């Protein structure tokens, strides 16, 4: 159907009016001569029809034969439009100019974006790019992107990688900054102290002097390995203590679960508000009567309009409120126990560090109040409890008690 309409339009068609008696005769003649007709309408003074412009010539002798008279009423379709357009030179020139302008303007760069800066200034990169020829108003083909990338790497210190992509009339400069490693960090002298209370199992000292022995009980913050090194000449140098100190650590976590809980459940009543946002202007599209829910959950949906990859400053916002009502729910003892234990283990997972090995665990469930269940989980783990604490700058660590210094 669409193809047929398109063909009619492309080939051009004419509307005719056939007057006279018995136009059916003419229609049958047209049929027999293979002339397709369409949109036939009977009028009080004749018949209207449309046919292909080229067929009109063929129809003329048939019309005479039947004694009817055809009158051309309208011409339509591309061939006729072209003819008409030929007379409107200004319009054609304007349309042509528009296409040319659009094409030309879209082959320039109009926007430059810098992505990936963390500590660097975007303006610095932009100005460097400008010097290298990447600036708004430049013809895209005149810019060698790879050259600009290389140039930026050379010009701007601290860049690890630069990638430039063109998207329409926008150039996107993506950069990655160099991460400057503090080489001095390895040389900061300091001690290893205990991260938690525990019982020393085993210790491997790689640098420094051990202060504790296996079997010793240590408290949190106590020095385990001193950052000291004895030189062959008998003097002492401050170094960074380093080692693995395995210790047993006991940890207790407690979780409580009430037997009666108030939760909020949806009642099923909802309220919806649709707004259209055009730039800073908001228009309410549809709004039910506000039922004034006392408690509700709100869900906001945003549907921004896009024209291809270009975001448009128009968006539809749909706010839906779901009414909630409080519901008391009581759970039985067994369920509460399970939940309390689960909660306790969840907490434990946050307390334990990577590399901790649970050696033993004990779970105690009690009911301190009739409406409360408490789970207490005690775990014994072996883990590395050494934690580096830098010594205060300039003062080499003495064998005096550790000063409270900047915590790591």
């Amino acid at each position: 159907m669409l193809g047929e309409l398109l063909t009619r339009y492309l080939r051009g068609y004419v509307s005719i009016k056939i007057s006279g008696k018995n136009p059916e005769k003419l229609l049958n003649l047209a049929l027999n001569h293979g002339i397709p007709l369409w949109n036939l309408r009977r009028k009080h003074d004749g018949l209207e029809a449309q046919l292909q412009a080229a067929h009109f010539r063929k129809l003329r002798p048939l019309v005479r034969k039947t004694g009817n008279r055809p009158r051309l009423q309208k011409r339509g379709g591309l061939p006729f439009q072209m003819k008409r357009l030929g007379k409107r030179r200004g319009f054609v020139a304007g349309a042509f100019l528009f296409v040319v302008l659009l094409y030309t303007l879209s082959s320039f760069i109009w926007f430059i974006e810098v992505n990936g800066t963390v500590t660097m200034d975007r303006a610095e990169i932009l100005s460097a790019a400008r010097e290298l020829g990447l600036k708004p108003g430049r013809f895209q083909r005149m810019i060698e992107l790879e050259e600009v990338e290389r140039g930026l790497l050379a010009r701007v210190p601290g860049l690890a990688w630069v990638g430039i992509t063109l998207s329409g009339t926008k150039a996107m400069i993506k950069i990655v900054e160099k991460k400057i490693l503090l080489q001095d960090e390895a040389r900061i002298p300091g001690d290893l102290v205990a991260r938690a209370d525990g019982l020393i199992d085993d210790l491997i000292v790689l640098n420094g002097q051990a202060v504790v022995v296996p079997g010793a009980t240590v408290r949190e913050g106590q020095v385990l390995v001193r950052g000291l090194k004895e030189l062959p000449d008998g003097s002492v140098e401050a170094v960074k203590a380093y080692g693995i100190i395995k210790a047993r650590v006991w940890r207790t976590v407690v979780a409580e679960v009430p037997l009666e809980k108030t939760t909020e459940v949806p009642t099923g009543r909802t309220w919806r508000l649709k707004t259209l946002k055009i730039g800073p202007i908001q228009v309410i599209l549809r709004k039910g009567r506000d039922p004034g829910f006392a408690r509700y959950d709100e869900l906001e949906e945003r549907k921004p309009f896009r024209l291809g990859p270009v975001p448009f400053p128009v968006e539809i916002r749909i706010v839906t409120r779901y009414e909630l009502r409080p519901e008391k729910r009581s759970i039985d003892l067994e369920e509460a126990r399970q939940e309390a234990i689960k909660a306790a283990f969840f907490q434990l997972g946050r307390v334990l560090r990577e590399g901790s090995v649970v050696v033993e665990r004990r779970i105690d469930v009690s009911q301190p109040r009739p409406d409360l269940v408490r789970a207490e989980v005690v775990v014994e783990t072996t883990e590395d409890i050494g934690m580096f604490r830098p010594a205060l700058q300039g003062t080499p660590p003495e064998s005096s008690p550790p000063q409270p210094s900047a915590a790591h």
Partner: protein
Amino acid sequence: MARGRGFVSRWVVDGLELPREVVMDLPRISIIGDGQVKLENYRGLLEFSPDLVRIKLARGELAIKGDGLAIKSLFPEELTIEGKIAGLSFEE
């Protein structure tokens, strides 16, 4: 209308499951709602007015009654009529 031919062709159609309208030269008519009638295998137009269209068939004629009838397309192989259709009837 020869009786013998009708018998043979009916026998051929039933036996070989051929499309009836092709073998027996019958019109194929499709109607969409009360708004459109499409006709294949017709012979010509007998009468065309907004409330009645009469179409010549190989055998007899078809009358379409309705309101505001117009011929959407008049092609040698196919005829489409649009408008408010009230009824179709076959006449000898």
